[in-house]
């Protein structure tokens, strides 16, 4: 990944959601941690263009991101904090096919891509399932499949394990670890953060730490105390 934030900040009216920051993200995995309301999700949404910078700019893989279409052009996929909202169609297979169709991929090619994506996540059994009947882990895997089917270069996960029990957490974490794509993972799950080579810590809209997981987590624990 090659993500550059240049004096990039976000304000919502009078409230500063993210202080202007200059930052370059490289490598295959980056974690983002911080207390609730610290600016993590705002930071993540900048990379797909769901939030626009109030100052400065952000670019992903050489594309300046101003809107979701820029985010898609840069090859960014986003797995939402509430994956139930991400799935638009009532049946998992239909949802994945719908995303592919929107990209102009239809018929057998789309069917094959859908099957291959689910197989890659070990979730073939979800293909014909109704979305509203899926468990927390299953819906997370289905949301991942809907994003991965579009072959992104970078996937941003917003708290992918926050609603999961231990078993489902293990399944989802294994799926994330096995991804070939670059990944940025916003999380409260310190065990997951610990496994990442680089972790950013946000606090009150400011980048508080950027370095090894151990350092960032130690500082996070002190902030939360």
């Amino acid at each position, binding site marked *: 990944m090659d993500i550059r934030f240049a004096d990039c900040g976000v304000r919502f009216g009078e409230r500063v959601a993210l202080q202007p920051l200059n930052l370059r993200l490289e490598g295959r995995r980056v974690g983002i941690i911080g207390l609730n309301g610290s600016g993590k999700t705002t930071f993540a949404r900048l990379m*797909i263009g*769901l939030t626009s910078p109030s100052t400065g700019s952000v670019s992903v893989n050489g594309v300046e991101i101003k809107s979701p279409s820029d985010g898609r052009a840069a090859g960014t996929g986003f797995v*939402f904090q509430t994956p139930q909202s991400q799935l638009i169609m009532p049946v998992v297979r239909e949802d994945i096919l719908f995303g592919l169709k*929107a990209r102009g991929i239809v018929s057998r090619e789309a069917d094959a891509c859908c099957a291959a994506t689910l197989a890659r996540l070990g979730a073939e059994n979800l293909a014909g399932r109704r979305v*509203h009947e899926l468990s927390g882990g299953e819906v997370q895997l289905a949301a991942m499949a809907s994003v991965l089917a579009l072959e992104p270069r970078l996937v941003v996960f917003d708290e992918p394990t926050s609603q999961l029990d231990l078993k489902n957490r293990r399944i989802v974490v294994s799926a994330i670890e096995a991804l070939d794509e670059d990944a940025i993972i916003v999380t409260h799950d310190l065990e997951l953060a610990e496994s990442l080579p680089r972790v950013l810590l946000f606090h009150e809209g400011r980048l508080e730490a950027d370095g090894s997981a151990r350092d960032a987590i130690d500082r996070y624990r002190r902030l939360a105390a």
Partner: protein
Amino acid sequence: MMSTPITTGQGWLHRQRAGTKLAALAILGVILFLVHSLDVLVAALVIAAAILAHVSGGLTPALRLARPALISVLLFFAINLLVLPVPEAVAVFLRVTVLVLAAAIVTATTQLAEIVAVIDRLARPFERMGLMQRGDAGLAVGLCLRLIPDIRAQYSELVDAHRARGLKVRPWTIMAPLAIRVLMRADAIADAIDARGLRP
């Protein structure tokens, strides 16, 4: 509206094109409203129920598929009994029930994506007139089918929350929080549609 179908069969009806089945459904609707004989309508009802039970793998799954629409039909029948002579109300009830079962047969034997594709094709003239974007009609149908169980689940959660706190469940104390939840969900879905590029 039917419950969300899951189509896995390979029978004759499954192999027919979605457009053909939807056109047949429309023609059946016209024919049914030209028929006034109760005997013929009852026969049509029996045939439709038998076909639905066959394609759904039994009467119970068939009823599950058609139940949401059948509840509305029963309410409609009750109102008709108040305003129409009984034979006429029964005829209307039979016609609408046969249509509901026929629609359930179509949804039980057709992939949602195929139905969405037909709706998208039918909506093309409106796209050319600039009244909607490509794929909007299909997206709307998919979202409806997707969100009905969600809204039902949110309603149940609110009812449970009232009961857990010993509060009386009243429509006006449910509707406001339900509307807020639905709007919040709509906001999140709009973000997802943008992020996934589901609208050009």
